[in-house]
């Protein structure tokens, strides 16, 4: 039984890297082709972009830019990661916290954050704190709301089971509610991390021209489009890799049942 299921899933996921590689190659080939038409003078070929990318990687441009971008991102995501999950859990467990917090985060999630980001300067100026705040603003709603949903949608049958087997309130939360909600909580964390990248770049584009946001703005103004695209590519790569790493970490540490045995 166990072996049969494993072999079935093994067949489906037998050559994932081959497929992924093909898909990436296809997109890059289309990009290269679109660059030769050309679609626009502001649209460089992939080959030009990758040359610019390697150059910026080699001469320390990226290192300098990301040493500006990453610290507020990390601080912001850690703050919402910890605070947001705790807030979401509190809202899922206590009707009072839910009443207090839920409307705020629903409004925040629905509102176009880019419109709020400029307001940050009035309160936090244009420094580190402003960037952190932008990251928090974008990543908090999805982290809080996912945690809340994960907690409040604990399966009734498992709650009843824990009650029948005499779980205390604390045991019920710790052994049933939290593990049952962890899937949604981690999904929120991944989405929140992705949103955090958006927040960091938005802050650098709108508030303080520093870091990778500044690279993008600068090369646009000097019409070095290959460099501009290389900067954009770098932040997309970094965001995708971080989100995948977080997912792997989740599987490795928290979801033994999802690991292939």
């Amino acid at each position, binding site marked *: 039984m166990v072996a049969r299921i494993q072999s079935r899933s093994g067949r489906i996921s037998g050559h994932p890297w081959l497929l992924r590689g093909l898909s990436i190659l296809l997109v890059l080939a289309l990009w290269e082709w679109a660059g030769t038409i050309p679609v626009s003078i502001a649209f460089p070929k992939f080959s030009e972009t990758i040359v610019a990318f390697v150059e910026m990687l080699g001469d320390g441009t990226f290192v300098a830019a990301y040493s500006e971008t990453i610290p507020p991102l990390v601080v912001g995501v850690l703050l919402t990661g910890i605070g947001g999950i705790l807030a979401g859990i509190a809202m899922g467990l206590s009707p009072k916290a839910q009443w207090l917090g839920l409307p705020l985060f629903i409004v925040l999630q629905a509102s176009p954050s880019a419109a709020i980001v400029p307001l940050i300067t009035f309160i936090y100026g244009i420094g580190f704190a402003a960037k952190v705040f932008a990251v928090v603003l974008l990543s908090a709603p999805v982290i809080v709301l996912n945690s809340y949903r994960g907690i409040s949608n604990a399966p009734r049958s498992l709650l009843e*089971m824990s009650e*029948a*087997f005499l779980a205390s309130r604390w045991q019920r939360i710790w052994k049933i509610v939290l593990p049952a909600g962890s899937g949604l909580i981690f999904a929120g964390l991944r989405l929140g991390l992705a949103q955090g990248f958006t927040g960091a770049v938005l802050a650098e584009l709108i508030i303080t021209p520093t870091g990778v946001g500044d690279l993008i703005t600068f090369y646009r103004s000097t019409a070095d489009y290959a460099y501009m695209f290389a900067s954009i590519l770098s932040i997309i790569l970094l965001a995708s890799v971080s989100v995948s790493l977080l997912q792997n970490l989740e599987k490795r540490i928290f979801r033994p049942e999802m690991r292939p045995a």
Partner: protein
Amino acid sequence: MTDPPPTSPSLPLSSDTGGRSREAAVRVMNLTKEYPGGIRALEGVSFDLPRGELTSIIGPSGCGKTTTLKIMAGLVEATAGDVLVDGSPVRGPGPDRAFVFQDFALMPWATVLRNAAFGLELRGVAKREREAVAREYIAKVNLSGFEDAYPHQLSGGMRQRVGLARALAVDADILLMDEPFASVDEQIRRKFQEDLLNLLSDEKKTVVFVTHSIEEAVYVSDQIVILTRGPAQVSKVVRPGIDRDSDSQSIRRDPAYLDWVERIWDELRDYLEG
């Protein structure tokens, strides 16, 4: 016993109607359950569970069988009436009762071993000790070798065996089973029924077994409580007294067994048509 409802046909269903002086481990007394909105699920349901016997609760679907069982478990509060376990009224779940759920209620993130040991884990039994007990019951329900598997790797029948092992591991005197085989396919179901009977004959437990299968009720039970359609009342309490010393194939072909299935079916049919 409540009076039989007036529609009850005068069938010779009377090998015993519960009046004999067996010692009752559980007494269900005059249970009434009304859900918000005035929907009445139970009305004056009373019966006794003789100690060490297996009692089935059977009736038309949606008639309140599960509600009755959950009130006995202390998971649902009765609007009126009482359940006495060894003479003291049930006020909530207790260590004297263990529950087997229709939908298994296994934690998908936990192994078979941890699921089976979960009742003991909640009681604060040390890991080594509770796992030893759980292993013993996993072996008794024929799941040895699957200790480290996760529920999604098991078939429905195997999952319910885990649910049974979990309930047995806490060593409660009373086992409450809510349609335990409802999600298990027919072939496995028969095997499971036989295994259950063998297992219970060693364990000396008082068992309540909710089912909608008449064959299952007659095959496994010492006593059958037949409920009418909602609001549920006790229609009859019967004791088929099938001789289970012979093998299962001959029991299922035994005229007495078939006769009981037919009689209970007649009894229930009135409520289905009425």
